[in-house]
């Protein structure tokens, strides 16, 4: 979006047209309605009974059902229309003012310097009319978000520029002399840090697919789905149900049928996941200006996320189980999250994620952000073995005893199986213990953790918000502590570490925060 229309932005129109109270462009109607629909359908707890109701409804009385569906559409369109009409905004010198709300009127005053991020979104249906959706993120203990649903391209970009320009004027701009390449797009100092090719995105789609999750969520619909499938297949003269009838088939063929079906399901879901990955991250570009990181990507809806460099709280390297097989990892640039946003699934918006990087590239990106970091070479210290005790004593042992008491005389095979299951749980516990590692150098705290996959965190110590040291009576006797480091991006816990080491890290981190006088944002 931005690349294509940079020429328009160059002859930036003045924002004077936005000085009067006004509505967003009428095309926003589509946006409001779709947003409402998305709100309804992204909520599983509403969606599941709704789908069930619809399914039953179609079966019983199609007429009434169609009526209800029509009504629903009319209601959504009306609410969308009213929201559109109620939403008015203006941009005065350095403030965005918004009036919105149907029943509860809201008035929002956003001074430019309180706007943390300006995100530009371009859904597919905006592309023909050259409109952008402008999302203004604000920081602070109460996160607010304002959306200008549709502005013409040039105005949206001019507004973004105006806000960022004011930021630059306020903040001390940092020197940047290590730019790798210069791109002449909107802002002249944009440096391209990273791009992702389609093959990278496919790898990301495969390794990040949520097949198991989808299959779990679909569980209530297995019976209707199989019924429908069965009917369809019978039309072609294929009697699928007899494949799965183990009274008619040998165990071998039955097993084969089950495995084949599972594989087909996995394949379909993985394909979906790949499609989602390509849709979201197509034409991925990570750019850096003198004070921001910018991510642009998207096949249908083009997204831009930008993050002020000073707002970056920590770097998070993530390598899931399958990523290890591919030798890839993902990097997250994480900034302040509000817990509310995380619950609403909006938490991702503030973050920049770079998918499917080779370790060397990840290292390069990390080095670009924190030049003095030693994540690649640092020696991680292990945590105490007592970490596994609660899991063993409170979960594994009761499970073992209960299963043996329950199964033993009647079903010995199940009893053996449950021993195996308990051993796997115990092994996972031990694996998790082995994965934990912490380290600190003069500037950064490093944490390694994970189970099958591994997560690495590189946290500048001066970004610390709060510190917590905790222990229970047994730990006290063994000289152990939990250390919790609270940052604006979240909370990192090092469990069961030696008390002395915990206090060393705590004292030094506090010293860094208090003596360096460096800002966290």
């Amino acid at each position, binding site marked *: 979006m931005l690349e294509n229309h940079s020429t328009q932005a160059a002859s930036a129109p003045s924002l004077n047209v936005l000085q009067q109270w006004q509505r967003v462009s009428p095309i926003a109607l589509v946006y409001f309605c779709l947003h409402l629909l998305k709100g309804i359908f992204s909520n599983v707890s509403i969606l599941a009974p709704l789908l069930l109701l619809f399914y039953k409804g179609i079966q019983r009385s199609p007429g009434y059902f169609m009526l209800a569906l029509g009504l629903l559409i009319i209601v959504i369109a009306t609410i969308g229309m009213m929201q559109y009409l109620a939403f008015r905004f203006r941009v005065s010198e350095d403030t965005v003012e918004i009036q919105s709300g149907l029943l509860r009127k809201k008035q929002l005053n956003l001074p430019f310097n309180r706007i943390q991020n300006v995100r530009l979104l371009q859904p597919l249906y905006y592309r023909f009319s050259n409109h952008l959706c402008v999302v203004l993120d604000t*920081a602070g203990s109460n996160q607010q978000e304002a959306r200008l649903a549709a502005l013409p391209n040039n105005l949206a970009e001019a507004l973004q520029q105006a806000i960022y320009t004011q930021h630059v004027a306020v903040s001390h701009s940092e020197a940047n002399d290590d730019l790798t390449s210069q791109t002449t797009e909107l802002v002249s100092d944009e440096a391209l840090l990273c791009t992702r090719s389609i093959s990278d995105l496919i790898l990301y789609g495969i390794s990040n697919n949520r097949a198991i999750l989808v299959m779990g969520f679909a569980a209530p619909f297995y019976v209707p789905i199989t019924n429908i499938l069965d009917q369809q297949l019978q039309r072609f003269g294929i009697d699928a149900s007899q494949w799965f009838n183990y009274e008619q088939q040998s165990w071998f063929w039955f097993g084969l049928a089950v495995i084949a079906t599972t594989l087909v399901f996995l394949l379909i879901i993985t394909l979906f996941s790949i499609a989602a990955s390509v849709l979201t991250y197509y034409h991925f570009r990570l750019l850096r200006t003198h004070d921001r990181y910018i991510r642009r990507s998207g096949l249908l809806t083009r997204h831009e996320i930008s993050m002020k460099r000073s707002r970056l709280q920590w770097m998070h390297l993530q390598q899931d189980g399958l990523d290890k097989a591919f030798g890839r990892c993902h990097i997250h640039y994480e900034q302040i999250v*509000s817990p509310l946003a995380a619950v609403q699934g909006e938490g991702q918006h503030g973050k920049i994620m770079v998918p499917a990087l080779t370790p060397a590239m990840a290292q390069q990106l990390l080095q670009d952000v924190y030049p003095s970091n030693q994540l690649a070479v640092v020696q991680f*210290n292990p945590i105490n073995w007592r970490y596994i005790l609660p899991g063993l004593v409170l979960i594994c042992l009761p499970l073992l005893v209960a299963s043996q008491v329950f199964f033993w005389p009647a079903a010995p095979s199940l009893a053996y199986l449950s021993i195996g299951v308990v051993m796997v749980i115990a092994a996972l516990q031990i694996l998790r213990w082995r994965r934990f590692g912490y380290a600190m150098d003069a500037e950064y705290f490093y944490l390694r953790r994970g189970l099958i996959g591994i997560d690495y965190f590189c946290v500048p110590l001066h970004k610390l*918000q709060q510190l917590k040291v905790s222990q229970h009576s047994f730990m006290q006797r063994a000289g152990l502590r939990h250390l919790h480091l609270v940052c604006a991006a979240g909370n990192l816990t090092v469990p069961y*570490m030696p008390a002395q080491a915990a206090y060393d890290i705590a004292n030094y981190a506090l*010293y860094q925060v208090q003596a360096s006088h460096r800002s966290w944002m």
Partner: protein
Amino acid sequence: MTTETFQNLPVSLAQLPSLDTLQWQTLAPSYTPLNVWLNVAITSSVALLWLALLWQPFWPLSTTLAPVVFWSGIVLCVLCAWSCLYCYFAYPLKAYALRQHDLSFQRGLFFKTSITQPITRIQHIELKRGPLERRFGLATLQVFSAGGAAHTFALPGLPVADAETIRQFILQHKDTVQYA
């Protein structure tokens, strides 16, 4: 932690002010009794409600419901009584410490926690006084950082004058960044 990790530290860790040698101050003397009595009051009202429900003659409980009410009432009462006991033993252990640059609070009987909030990371600060706190001249100091609502630092059971003093100390601290 091994020592080689620290080789390039500019300061010797041993010389840094240490968290494990804080000078803890106890909370207001009326704080623990107030909470114990509050818990006792809650426990007795729960127990009374339960007994009233069991013995009231107006709506006889069905045979399936009666044991459920009986046992859940017992569990509830035991939990309440436990919280009284816990309050009695654990609340006197609550303490806070104020240093030049940070504020600490510790609590817990079996699970001990101590939280330290650097003053330079404080976003804003609130003094809260419920009706009972007002009656007993107490106040709760709440300190908010960017760590999020789950990590709000709260200092309960302070005498009002002390709470005011700490609040003033934080507000006048040169590191306190105030947001409009």
